[in-house]
């Protein structure tokens, strides 16, 4: 309170939370952005005694074209903060200066802005209005290239790699300009028209007189988008020579290093600017500064890998990932040990009193920690807790192993997110953000891409923890490695598909005789018509009218034959299953056509009863056709021994609750003895002399894969009924209920007298 008075702020103002809106034209999945933001937030929080509420919006201009997105982004931010304008805007800007300037000037004219421009270009301040301060951060391309020549005097050629977005190109231009001063000392070559995949290949066969300078790749020449540090990882992994870069993330992925701009420092500087203004400083009194600071940072492992002499490093270099020598490693332990012994000697008596209590607490703490590690290790459970105010992330040993982090590695939440496969990352982050903010549970499966390129499948479950004011203060959860079971699952899927296909082919074998007949009919008609036509042509005069009729019939019969073949092919075709909205009545009708001649042969009357539809199921057409076909052929088979005029099969389609459709196939055969109602679904159970015994087994597995059920029951008045349910297409929630059955279609090919 005394502080507040000192800075001339009244008491009510102290209670009020300060709102800081962070606008970034890149995405938070970029490690640079998140590092700047985290450090800025942390500095602001430490500097102020008030509660600070942070909001952040990301345009992601590095990876997505902006023509359509920018206006949407503007409107979104405008709407969102119209009623709660921020006290300060922090603009982290790389390319979209105009956009952020417009937003600040038109929508929040009185809100001060701290601008951090990561750019090689000139930035005009007028656009932002009078309330702006901050700095422009330049890269140190020349410094990096000088370092290459210092560390590797044998280098005659530097290959520069970069992307195709304006942001990428700006950096490449800077390298181009700076390279002029190196003319004569080294050849600088730009590889900017190759895709990342091509680059990966090309850098793998470079000679030792060459070094690679990786700038940024937001988008490669094929138009594919990347997080630059991930593209860097791929280049570093494949390169046959040392790779250098100008931003600090490059060191983390195994490049040798460079004169790098430090996002942590940038973040802290942004935080200091922001803190000054929030404490009452004025923005327009601080003009925009130009910062060129960069730090020579190197990866110790990479230096050793390429045999680069540590003595060549310039003074003041930072060595990361250094494996310390034994003395270095244990020196502090020894010194600390000595200090503790001295301290203990002095306080031993005092401590003696409390010792037992301390020990107890300490032991139980350690025990509970060990217990967690033991239990989670035994259950292969990765655990994590992220504390939002401090930004700290705790992960147990299993999770570190799953993610491929070293046991003692310290990492931030972004490093953790960075391990999520790029293809799954947006989905995963969206799932976490959506649920965690409300303190709800989230759960998803995703792939991890780990250093070394090994991919793993994991299941993530977790929740957000809110404080009493409903703010998210912690996220925590469990990660389970499902790689093994996922692979088994995929394999089982493939095998089931294979078996399903084979069963379909064998069903076609059963139908072969009647299908031959089906094809023979149009062929007979075509041949006889053609021969009749020949004869009519010989007659004098030729009967043109009849000839025309004949030709019309031939064309019609030809399409009839093609239709049979098309129906056949749709069943025999082998393709990965494909889910879509399907009209069930259409499927049943199609199968009825397919078995039509078989029905005639067996003297069976088939009819379809359909309640008020349409019934759109969600499923795979070929597979559901197969199920209906199996059930119909089984029904025919069950009625071989009963009088011909009693052989009837009725197919019904009706709604089954709000989310399912039920299809039933009822025959008038002898029904099934009670113990067979389930047995028939077992593999290799068959009543047909040449049956495979897989029809119903596979049908059931198909239906279960569709989230439904397939079962058999006996009719009260004789015969059996096979029922299956499938999910309705959720997008078409139409008329639902138990409308009366209406006769939709009845096969009339069997006129029983």
């Amino acid at each position, binding site marked *: 309170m005394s502080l507040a008075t000192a800075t001339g702020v009244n008491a009510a103002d102290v209670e009020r939370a300060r709102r800081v809106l962070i606008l970034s034209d890149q995405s938070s999945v970029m490690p640079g952005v998140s590092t700047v933001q985290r450090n800025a937030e942390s500095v602001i929080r430490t500097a102020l005694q008030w509660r600070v509420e942070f909001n952040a919006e990301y345009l992601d201009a590095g990876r997505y074209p902006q023509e359509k997105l920018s206006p949407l982004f503007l409107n979104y931010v405008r709407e969102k903060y119209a009623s709660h304008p921020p006290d300060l805007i922090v603009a982290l800007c790389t390319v979209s200066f105009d956009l952020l300037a417009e937003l600040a000037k038109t929508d929040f004219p009185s809100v001060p802005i701290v601008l951090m421009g990561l750019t090689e270009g000139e930035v005009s301040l007028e656009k932002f209005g009078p309330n702006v301060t901050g700095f422009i951060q330049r890269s140190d391309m020349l410094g990096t290239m000088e370092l290459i020549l210092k560390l590797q005097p044998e280098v005659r050629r530097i290959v520069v790699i970069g992307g195709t977005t304006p942001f990428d190109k700006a950096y490449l231009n800077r390298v181009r300009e700076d390279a002029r001063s190196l003319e004569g000392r080294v050849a600088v070559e730009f590889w900017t028209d190759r895709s990342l995949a091509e680059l990966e290949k090309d850098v793998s066969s470079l000679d030792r007189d060459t070094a690679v300078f990786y700038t940024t790749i937001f988008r490669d020449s094929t138009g594919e988008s990347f997080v630059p540090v991930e593209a860097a990882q791929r280049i570093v992994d494949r390169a046959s020579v040392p790779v250098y870069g100008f931003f600090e993330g490059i060191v983390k992925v195994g490049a040798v290093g460079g004169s790098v701009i430090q996002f942590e420092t940038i973040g802290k500087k942004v935080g200091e600017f922001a803190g000054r203004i929030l404490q009452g400083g004025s923005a327009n009194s601080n003009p925009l500064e130009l910062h060129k600071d960069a730090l020579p940072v190197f990866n110790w492992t990479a230096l050793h890998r390429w045999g680069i002499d540590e003595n060549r490093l310039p003074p003041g270099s930072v060595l990361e990932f250094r494996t310390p020598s034994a003395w270095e490693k244990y020196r502090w332990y020894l010194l600390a040990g000595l200090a503790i012994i001295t301290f203990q000697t002095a306080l031993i008596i005092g401590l003696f009193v409390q010792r037992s209590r301390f020990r107890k607490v300490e032991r139980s703490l350690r025990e509970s920690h060990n217990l967690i590690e033991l239990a989670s290790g035994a259950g292969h459970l990765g655990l994590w807790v992220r504390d939002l105010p401090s930004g700290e992330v705790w992960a147990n040993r299993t999770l570190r192993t799953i993610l491929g982090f070293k046991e003692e590695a310290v990492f931030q939440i972004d490093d953790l997110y960075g391990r999520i496969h790029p293809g799954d990352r947006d989905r995963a982050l969206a799932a976490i953000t959506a649920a965690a903010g409300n303190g709800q549970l989230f759960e998803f499966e995703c792939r991890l891409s780990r250093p070394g390129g090994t991919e793993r499948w994991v299941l993530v479950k977790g929740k957000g923890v809110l404080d009493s004011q409903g703010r998210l203060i912690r996220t925590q959860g469990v990660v389970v490695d499902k790689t093994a079971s996922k692979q088994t699952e995929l394999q089982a899927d493939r095998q089931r598909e294979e078996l399903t296909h084979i069963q379909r082919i064998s069903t076609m074998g059963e139908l072969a*005789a009647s299908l*031959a*007949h089906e094809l*023979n*009919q*149009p*062929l*007979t*008609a*075509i*041949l*006889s*018509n053609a*021969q*009749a036509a020949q*004869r*009519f042509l010989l*007659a004098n005069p030729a009967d043109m009218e*009849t000839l025309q009729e*004949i030709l019309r*019939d031939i064309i*019609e*019969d030809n399409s*009839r034959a093609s239709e049979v073949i098309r129906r056949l092919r749709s069943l025999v075709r082998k393709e990965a299953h494909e889910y879509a909205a399907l009209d069930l009545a259409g499927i049943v009708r199609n199968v009825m056509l397919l078995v039509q001649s078989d029905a*005639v*042969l067996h*003297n069976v009357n088939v009819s379809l009863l359909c309640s008020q539809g349409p019934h759109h199921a969600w499923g795979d057409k070929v597979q559901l056709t197969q199920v209906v076909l199996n059930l119909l052929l089984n029904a025919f088979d069950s009625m071989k021994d009963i009088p011909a005029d009693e052989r009837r099969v009725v197919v019904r389609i009706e709604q089954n609750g709000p989310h399912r459709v039920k299809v039933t196939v009822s025959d008038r055969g002898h029904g099934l003895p009670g113990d067979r109602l389930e047995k028939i679904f077992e593999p290799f159970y068959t009543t047909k002399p040449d049956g495979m015994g897989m029809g119903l087994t596979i049908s059931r597995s198909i239906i279960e894969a569709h989230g439904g059920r397939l079962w058999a029951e006996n009719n009260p008045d004789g015969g059996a009924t096979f029922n299956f349910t499938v999910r309705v297409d959720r997008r078409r929630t139409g008329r639902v209920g138990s409308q009366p059955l209406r006769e939709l279609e009845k096969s009339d*090919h*069997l*006129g*029983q*007298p």
Partner: protein
Amino acid sequence: MFLIDDDASVRRALTRLITSAGHQVRPFASAREYLDSGPHGGGPACLVLDVRLPGLSGLDLQRELRTAKTPHPVIFITGHADVPMSVKAMKEGAVDFIPKPVRDEDLLRSIEQAMTRAERESAERAEIEALQDRAHRLTPREREVMALVVRGLLNKQIAFELGTAEKTVKVHRARVMQKMQVQSLAELVRVTEKIGLPPRPAS
């Protein structure tokens, strides 16, 4: 010519083919339809039948026709030739058993055969009917005499069998020869063989 096939398109094509060879065709969609439109007795005719028909099958129809008074020759056409079925059909007296798709010369040759057979059978049927007519005109006594004559008995033996005079028998015998329009005993024997045993009097 009668054609029975349940497939409308095939029926139409075959009708055209047979018509183009100069035959008259009546098409039917089922055996039942054919039977209901009957009887089709009288003149020489033959049937082209699909073996596989809904309801009453081709083979069933063939059997039924054989027991009728006018067994027209039958040609089977079939979509799936199966040996036992064709043997059965041929044993039951089918003229031919032709697999689909049908070649015109096969079908037309079979039709020629069947028509020849139908004409012959029709002529025979006409002759028998005429002979039966004549036999109907015999008196009961003449019938008895005729039966004994064709068994080869002499007039004297017949008179003894019937308990009458030899002279009377002689008169009856002459009447029989006259009414049956035959010249010799041998001819009379052949005629009675053709019409079977002399039918009983109409009363």
